């Protein structure tokens, strides 16, 4: 059996409310909150980045597992805010996790789905008997004044994938990808550009729906076979609508829907939703996870919770505890700390 042995999340403590950003942008907060279905977002401190957040989440992951860090063969981190353009985030994180030197590593980038791509690589390596750390972290970029500023947030979700004491079996994974230019950032540019409403139907909805349908068709399942569904969450509206279109209920998506309270953590968004579900899931329950990365592609996973989850959930710092531990900042504090 191959799957998730352990997991860990990290969300910075700072939050900014939509009202604060709307005030700075001269916009109507009520309209923004209604259209994006988001009330506040997380932002990092000045000394936090993708590497530091991945380390914090990774330390929770490994401290809750019996596997020695030196028995881990690879590390893959997906992000669109790797601290360096050239020099891997993975080696910094592996060093801080005490993985020794006998591991392979490469950083992944596929907009908001680099993290699920990392899990897929880990899944196939785990089938060959290796333990792999994989996950995502992002300090999402947004230009001051852009609509993205309301949602672009920070967070990390890391996983240990292997064959031993699996808590969440990855039964299958499929992907749906195409060349769709809906959101991009060129080298040397600080902030991403996007194609406005084109990020909706031909991009997010087409890919998420196609990947989820492909997974269910391949495995002979229907939405009611799943206890939880987690979708990439760039705002509150998109995942709610895609769930409805696919035939999932509000109840199935509510526990993994974090965007309304922490914003869009980009490559960590769907994976933090998965962490929140793993924190509370019971043996025998089934999860459908589907990410989305602009450019564009979706990875969909069929996950089955095992008996090992009961022991794994004990004394673990939960995603919910990070969501609740928050300090509000004003727009100036946000600019000083999070806008680089």
């Amino acid at each position, binding site marked *: 059996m191959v799957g998730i042995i352990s997991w860990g999340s990290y969300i910075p403590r700072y939050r900014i409310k939509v009202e604060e950003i709307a005030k700075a942008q001269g916009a109507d907060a009520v309209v923004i909150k209604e259209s994006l279905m988001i009330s506040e977002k997380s932002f990092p*401190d000045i*000394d936090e*980045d993708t590497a530091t957040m991945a380390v*914090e989440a990774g330390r929770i992951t490994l401290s809750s597992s019996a596997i020695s860090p030196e028995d881990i063969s690879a590390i893959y981190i997906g992000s669109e805010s790797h601290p360096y353009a050239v020099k891997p985030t993975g080696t910094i994180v592996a060093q801080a996790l005490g993985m020794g030197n006998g591991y392979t590593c490469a950083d992944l980038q596929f907009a908001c789905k680099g993290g699920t791509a990392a899990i897929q690589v880990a899944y196939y390596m785990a089938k060959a008997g290796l333990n792999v750390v994989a996950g995502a972290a992002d300090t999402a970029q947004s230009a001051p004044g852009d609509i993205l500023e309301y949602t672009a947030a920070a967070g990390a979700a890391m996983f240990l994938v292997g064959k031993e004491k699996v808590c969440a079996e990855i039964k299958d994974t499929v992907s749906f990808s195409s060349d769709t230019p809906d959101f991009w950032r060129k080298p040397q540019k600080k902030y991403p550009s996007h194609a406005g409403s084109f990020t909706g139907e031909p991009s997010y909805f087409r890919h998420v729906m196609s990947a989820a349908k492909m997974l269910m068709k391949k495995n002979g399942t229907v939405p009611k076979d799943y206890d939880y569904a987690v979708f990439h969450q760039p705002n509150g509206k998109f995942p709610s609508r895609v769930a409805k279109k696919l035939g999932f209920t509000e109840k199935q998506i509510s526990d993994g829907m974090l965007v309304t309270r922490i914003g869009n953590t980009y490559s960590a968004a769907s994976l933090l939703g998965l962490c929140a579900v793993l924190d509370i899931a019971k043996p025998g329950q089934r999860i459908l996870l589907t990410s989305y990365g602009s450019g564009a592609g979706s990875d969909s996973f069929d996950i089955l919770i095992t008996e090992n989850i009961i022991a794994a959930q004990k004394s673990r710092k939960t995603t919910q505890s990070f969501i609740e531990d928050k*300090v509000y900042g004003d727009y100036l504090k946000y600019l000083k700390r999070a806008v680089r």
Partner: protein
Amino acid sequence: MAIPRIWRQIEEKYNLVGTLCKDCKKKHFPPREVCSCGCYDLEKYRFLGKGEIVTYTVIRISSEDNEDTPFRNIPYVLAIVRLDEGPSLTAQIVQCSESELMIGKKVEMVFRKLLEKGEKGVIQYGYKFRIA
């Protein structure tokens, strides 16, 4: 700070790796070549990263350093932290308000950016502490 020095300090800064005297069992941070008991037989020891505030100060006017840019906003908190295993060290306390600070307060290690050598330079990562 020179690159080789940043590189040499990675274990110490990332994971609070110090030394343990095989003779008198005293633990040191930062790591030492010779124990205060005179013994040269030391081994690496990784501290758990838990401790308490011995004393602290809030820095409101920071000195400028043209070479290394530290990742911190004024005001920031510097404290002497006594690790549970014995040694004390100086470190920044992050994400806390002044009202949360108190001598004797329990703290735990976090992994943060320390400084970078200008916009083009290498980033040095390492330990800071937060209220536990």
